[in-house]
């Protein structure tokens, strides 16, 4: 040991003090944080939905007048790597930088972690609460047994989507065998459970010939799984896969030449539609919210055009992003404030019409948005918006109104007094 240690310690504290001011750039008004996968195998999904979210925030929130003051929004993008721990590290970074609203899309395991951490945070810091606006972690438990006052789900949950999916399958009387495949984590398991439950309810004659989980984001070649599907002689494949896992599954299933129809909830969008291409025509159905083709309202078409003009090479595939931001804006006005507690109360049972013309409501008792769902088919003709400039996209074939889509909840909401 010598004096240079001292110098070192001095230098390190210098580095620190140099770093700290840079870290203190605070929002003037309202800070919104987006935590999602910005790197790794699902980066494409995360970055895409981040761009859509940022655009929506610019359009709907920035400059909006709330209680006589113009909002100035700072938008933080943080890389949660679809990992619960990474996301909580970023949550803490976000909160300490003043974020009040946390948007998040992918990963139900992340969703659970965020709910747990935000519950604790809000309990410990009543003067500095945050809200979690979740538009992609759709494990039904998040608005069921694990529901939280601080969490709002801006997408139909797995049960709602799968119920609609099974309704669609049930229409086809020739279907005799179903194969379920999903990613090995809470969402994939919830999808599988829902598929089994609703198939048993609605078409008990359909035999489930496969119920497969695979590691999330790690399978490079899905051929062995595709071969299993082929061997099971399934008529339909039901999958909750998304991102790279959906792309690669579609590739392999296509390559091996199975006759089965695929029913998914994320089996469309950038990457997927282009890969499935010609061979998927008439064989791929999706249940999701929103309107891609046709856009349903001129406002929505104009909004989409503007987004695409600004982000060439991107696609608009997460309409619920816009719902969430729109809804938040409505709640700010209703509450006359951006204080998360007031806004949370304002959000409960908030009804509004989305930009694409759907009437939706944020159900107060479980914070699950109730919305109409659309059945879409993989298509080539009649598209206004394709994906990846491939000529392929999705087209709405039928709509499921909100009323047919309402499920009971097991949520016992704890509200702050």
């Amino acid at each position, binding site marked *: 040991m010598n004096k240079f240690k*001292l110098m070192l310690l001095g230098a390190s504290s210098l*580095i*620190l003090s140099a770093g700290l001011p840079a870290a203190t750039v605070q929002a003037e008004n309202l800070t919104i944080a987006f935590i999602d996968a910005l790197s790794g195998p699902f980066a494409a999904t995360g970055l895409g939905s981040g761009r859509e979210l940022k655009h929506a925030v610019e359009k709907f929130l920035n400059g909006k007048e709330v209680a006589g003051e113009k909002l100035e929004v700072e938008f933080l993008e943080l890389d949660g790597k679809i990992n619960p721990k990474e996301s909580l590290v970023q949550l803490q970074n976000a909160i*300490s930088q003043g974020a009040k609203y946390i948007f998040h899309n992918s990963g139900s395991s992340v969703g659970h972690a965020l709910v*747990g951490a935000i519950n604790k945070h809000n309990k410990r810091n009543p003067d500095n609460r945050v809200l979690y606006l979740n538009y992609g972690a759709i494990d039904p438990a998040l608005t069921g047994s694990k529901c939280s006052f601080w969490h709002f789900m801006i997408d139909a949950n797995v049960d709602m989507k799968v119920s609609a999916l099974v309704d669609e399958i049930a229409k086809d009387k020739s279907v005799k065998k179903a194969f379920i495949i999903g990613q090995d984590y809470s969402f994939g398991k919830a999808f599988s459970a829902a598929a089994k439950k609703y198939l048993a309810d609605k078409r008990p004659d359909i035999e489930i010939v496969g119920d497969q989980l695979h590691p999330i984001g790690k399978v490079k070649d899905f051929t062995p799984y595709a071969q299993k599907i082929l061997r099971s002689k399934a008529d339909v494949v039901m999958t909750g896969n998304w991102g790279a896992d959906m792309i690669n599954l579609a590739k392999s299933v296509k390559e091996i030449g199975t006759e089965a129809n695929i029913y998914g909830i994320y089996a469309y969008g950038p990457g997927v539609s282009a890969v499935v291409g010609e061979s998927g025509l008439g064989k791929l159905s999706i249940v999701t919210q929103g309107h891609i083709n046709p856009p349903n309202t001129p406002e929505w078409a104009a909004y989409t055009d503007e987004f695409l003009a600004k982000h060439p090479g991107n696609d608009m595939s997460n309409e619920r992003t816009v719902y969430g931001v729109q809804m938040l804006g409505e709640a700010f006005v209703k509450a006359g404030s951006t204080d998360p507690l007031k806004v949370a109360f304002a959000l409960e049972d908030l009804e509004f019409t989305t930009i694409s013309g759907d009437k939706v409501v944020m159900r107060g008792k479980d914070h699950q948005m109730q919305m109409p769902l659309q059945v879409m088919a993989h298509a080539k003709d009649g598209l206004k918006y394709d994906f990846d400039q491939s000529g392929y996209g999705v087209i709405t074939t039928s709509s499921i109104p909100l009323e047919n889509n309402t499920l009971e909840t097991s949520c016992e909401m704890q509200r702050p007094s």
Partner: protein
Amino acid sequence: MSNLTQIRKAENIARKKRLRILWLCFAVILVVLPLLATKFGLTILTQICVASVFALAYNMLLGQGGMLSFGHAVYFGLGGYASIHLMEYVGTGGAPIPLVLTPIFGGLFGLVAALLIGSFSTRRAGTVFAMISFGIAELVAASAIILVGFFGGEEGMSSDRTMGPSFFGYEMIPQIEVYYFAAVWFFLATFAMYYFSRSPAGRMANAVRDNAERAQFIGYNPQKIRLVSFVASGFFAGIAGGIFAIQYEIVTDSNLNTAASGLVMLQAYIGGIGYFVGPVIGAIVMTLLNTVVSGMTDLWLLYTGLLFIGTVLLAPNGLTGLIMMHTDAYRNGKLSTLVKPYLIGLIPLTASFVGIISLVEMFSHRNEQTVGDDVMPLFFMNIDVSTSEAWIAFTILSLAGIIGLRFTIPMVRTAWHEANEALTLPASPTKQEGAKNE
């Protein structure tokens, strides 16, 4: 009594006095820094505490024992998981243990795991050890997904740090209390690791690193020496995991996978593995990159990679090594002669730095596919990337900087040599404690 003995004894007393002052300074810095920090700064400081303990633990292997591990996050992660289980156990009324003691539990768990795995992995050093550690890390990370009971699968394990009995009224609710909790453990662990490095086992770890064969012929079993270091390192990694578990109240497979292991190696190496404090410097730099710089640019990982490669090729002793290069100049009292050449050298360095970073950032901004959004903030300016002037200006700046460096580098080098050359052979016995191998 020989002359040397007398000198040593005198130096030893002086050394101990210096050490006491240093430890005191260290403590004071840890206490005072958060008072100056913002909320975000406080979060960063807490992260630095955890990262530093882990990096120091890692360096017990790489720097002091010569064992390159690609899987040391396993012990950090296992310590973290164990801590979460302890928190749950305490929280559900299992035992009234104050949770501020959690890290010691995480450490013990890391120790046991390191003992089990180290018993066979430390038989060899070098590539074989590196690859065993890598394989084990892959195995444990994969198991963490599969074995839901202990690891919680993809979701990991979470708990609540405030559930335990309070520790003299201290409940770790606000962030500042969490920081002081982390800081105290950082101090204790650093203290223990420093004295480990001065112990016979720690010194022999250096010897085995240098020459394992020779160590056998002075009575030491190299495997046992490696094992002792490995187990101690696992213990402190587990402590770091325990602090992490308290801070974030969650531990997942990403705490123990190979990416986490790679990160800690980066930290230790960038900081300088040849010095005791090196890993702390690395942890500070990397944490700032990860929090502050990542908020400024999406390319922070690219810069991290460049920093790392640059360190490996140009400054194998790390950032600490760059500072320690001036030890002799300081002893010669010639440090001040370096100020001028360094300042001159800094000009082209800054120019090329600003120029190249700007070009890289502009390229990336253009690739981001946002039409119409041509103006980007860069080094306190707003630059329009659609104009060729901006590109030309920064290209010229970079080139000028690089050309300037060609002239200034020899000058700086000469100045440095002159400042160091007057050096006579060191005479006092405890200067051996100086730079290397602490």
